[in-house]
């Protein structure tokens, strides 16, 4: 086991040498990592890879989707993470040798460079990556990682105490980033003496489906000013209940992560009479928040041509990835929300709209992420 835990990745002087400009110049046109990885997957100069150290079942999931926590030992290139951030995980699925990339929030407390992290993953019934990681992945398996990313992070720490009240509202596997934040606070000595409260409100389908049940019970029982409210089954979110738990919730720093239904209800609770959403509410989505991109009533004129396959269709306002899939094409994708760049393709001509920013562009030969781009007129995609 210890062989799995200790990273044989080059660090110190060797690491510095491997990251030097000299090494890069000697390896050109390839990168130093392209040499190292051929000899040991845990050697890296720039990229991040991780070896699975252990797989721990969180819920049995007889009837429902089981959840597991993977402990990962990253290469020495791991720069650490802030609580609430996620990583892109590249997995080579056995049988197809195809690498798929998905985003997972880190469930362990904030990490320092080279330190172990955990991911807590729910196996979706037909989910390729999540099923593999939860049901089949074994200690020793190598995963490809990005550095930690995302701005859904904790803004407070015991080192910079304020008397702000912190509120976490989560549902299902959306508990992971919030768990990382609470674990970070507690690990770093948070004990409520600063006079601020932490409220943790979580919704799970059933008690059997409750992730981290024991740990949460421990946190709730301890004298630390962290209150934990677990709701199961029919006990769905209500603004009325929230107001009782956190009277001034709209002016409380809130981190929200969960399924679409929960997110919609909470958003309403943070929207005032004038329709203004409180800026104190921060959200993280595990599923693409944008599916249809054209505004209601807006019609898109134009034809989308996928030039390599010779297929085309009228622009519908859906993302180019969806339009391609509707035509039976199978372009590569990862997150489907514009963060992993797996779906990048070249738009050779025409006008497209970035659905995240609304920005339109008519540049030829532009690299676009087709999962967050829709046609804004005629356009040609190299696919």
């Amino acid at each position, binding site marked *: 086991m210890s062989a799995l835990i200790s990273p044989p990745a080059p660090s110190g002087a060797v690491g510095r040498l491997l990251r030097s400009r*000299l090494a890069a*110049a*000697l390896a*050109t*046109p*390839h990168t130093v990592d*392209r*040499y190292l*990885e*051929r000899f040991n997957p845990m050697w890296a100069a720039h990229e991040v890879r991780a070896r699975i150290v252990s797989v721990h079942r969180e819920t049995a999931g007889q009837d429902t989707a089981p959840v597991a926590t993977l402990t990962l030992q990253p290469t020495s290139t791991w720069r650490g993470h802030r609580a609430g951030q996620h990583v892109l995980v*590249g997995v*080579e699925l*056995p*049988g*197809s*040798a*195809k*690498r*798929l*990339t998905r985003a997972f929030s880190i469930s362990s407390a904030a990490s320092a460079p080279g330190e172990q992290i955990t991911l807590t993953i729910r196996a979706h019934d037909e989910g390729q990556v999540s099923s593999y990681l939860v049901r089949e992945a074994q200690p020793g398996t190598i995963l490809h990682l990005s550095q930690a990313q995302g701005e859904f992070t904790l803004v407070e720490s015991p080192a910079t105490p304020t008397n702000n009240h912190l509120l976490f509202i989560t549902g299902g596997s959306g508990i992971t980033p919030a768990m990382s934040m609470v674990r970070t606070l507690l690990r770093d000595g948070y004990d409520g003496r600063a006079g601020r409260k932490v409220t943790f409100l979580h919704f799970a389908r059933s008690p059997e489906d409750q992730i981290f049940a024991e740990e949460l019970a421990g946190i709730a029982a301890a004298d630390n000013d962290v209150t934990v409210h677990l709701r199961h089954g029919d006990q769905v979110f209500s603004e009325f209940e929230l107001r009782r738990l956190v009277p001034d919730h709209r002016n409380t720093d809130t981190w929200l992560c969960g399924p679409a239904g929960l997110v919609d209800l909470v958003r309403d609770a943070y929207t005032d009479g004038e329709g203004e959403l409180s800026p104190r509410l921060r959200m993280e989505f595990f599923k693409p928040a944008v599916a249809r991109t054209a505004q209601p009533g807006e019609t898109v004129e134009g034809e989308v041509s996928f030039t390599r396959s010779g297929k085309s269709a009228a622009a519908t306002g859906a993302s180019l990835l969806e339009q391609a899939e509707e035509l039976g094409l199978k372009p*590569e994708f990862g997150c489907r929300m514009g963060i992993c760049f*797996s779906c*990048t393709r070249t738009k050779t001509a025409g006008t497209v709209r970035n659905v995240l920013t609304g920005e339109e562009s008519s540049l030829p030969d532009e690299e676009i992420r087709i999962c967050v781009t829709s046609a804004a007129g005629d356009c040609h995609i190299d696919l």
Partner: protein
Amino acid sequence: MTATVTEHDEKYHGLTAEQIEKLGEELDAIRQRVIADLGETDAAYLRKVVTTQRKLEIAGRALFYLPVVGWVPAVACLSVSKILDNMEIGHNVMHGQYDFLGDPAFNSRMFDWDTVCPGEQWKYSHNYIHHTFTNIVGKDRDVGYGILRMDPEQKWHPYYLGNPLYAFLLMTFFEWGVALHDLEVENIVSGKRKLADNKPLYPGLMRKIRKQALKDYVLFPALTGPLFPLTFAGNAVANLVRNVWAFNIIFCGHFPAGVASFSEEETENETRGHWYLRQMLGSANIKGSKLMHVMSGNLSHQIEHHLFPDLPARRYPEIAGEVQEICERYGLPYNTGRLSQQLFSVFRKIVRYSFPGGTAKVSPVRGPGSVTEDSLAA
């Protein structure tokens, strides 16, 4: 073959439009079958070749530290490493053959190879221009590389008396020839292209040349200290060996006797079936051992490569039999021969076309294997 014959296509060995469509469908079926079967074995093969190449490269670089005795093995290792990098790895990865793996290390959009030609530019001139307009005189710039006269449809000019000399120089400096190929100098001379069109290409080209030269001719030699001149020379020889090998393989793929060329008019309104036919008739294979295929990046199966440029090249040998069988059934030539045979044939062509004239038309032969000699003697 009892299709209702309406329209015979002379250029395509008398096949009817209907037969050509049928041929296209048969080839599409092979393609689909291979695509459905892609997976771990292809990935494992590629990784094995890459590991071998990286080990040879490291061994080659290290052997230069052994004065005298190390030099020849060092050059040998480095030459083989560069050949593998360019042919079985670079050429094939940049064709998108391994994009299906989803591994950035073998993604056609990110890969670059160990030559002075920037992968980015090569992908345009080779993947797009050459593979789309294969052997269409006036469009496919690989016909003679804008330097040589390799086809009677190219108008003769006294300049072409130097054909053999140019071919020799192109062979020696092949990587530079490939790099400068993208600048389309001949089109600038003829006025088809403006000098300004090349401007955006210079920075990428210069960057690549600088990096390649720095590595092979400054840094690695310098790291061997007093052995600098020997290492420098060894690296130069390794690049030369790769150049000579690559040139020969590539010329055997398109220029042996019996390979057809096409005019722009002939290829207007081409169907997919016609496209397949043009690829078949415009390429030639080299017979040889497994090692020969690996070292040529399986371009010894140039016919299969031209039919299916984005299928992993390691699959070409396994489908070659089927492709040849299809050719026989349709009465089409399947141009193949031993390396020496194909080289000699190319050599004759280079010499023949330095003089005026020559005939292009492959005699409308039908039947298997009947095209090994052409009408060059005319």
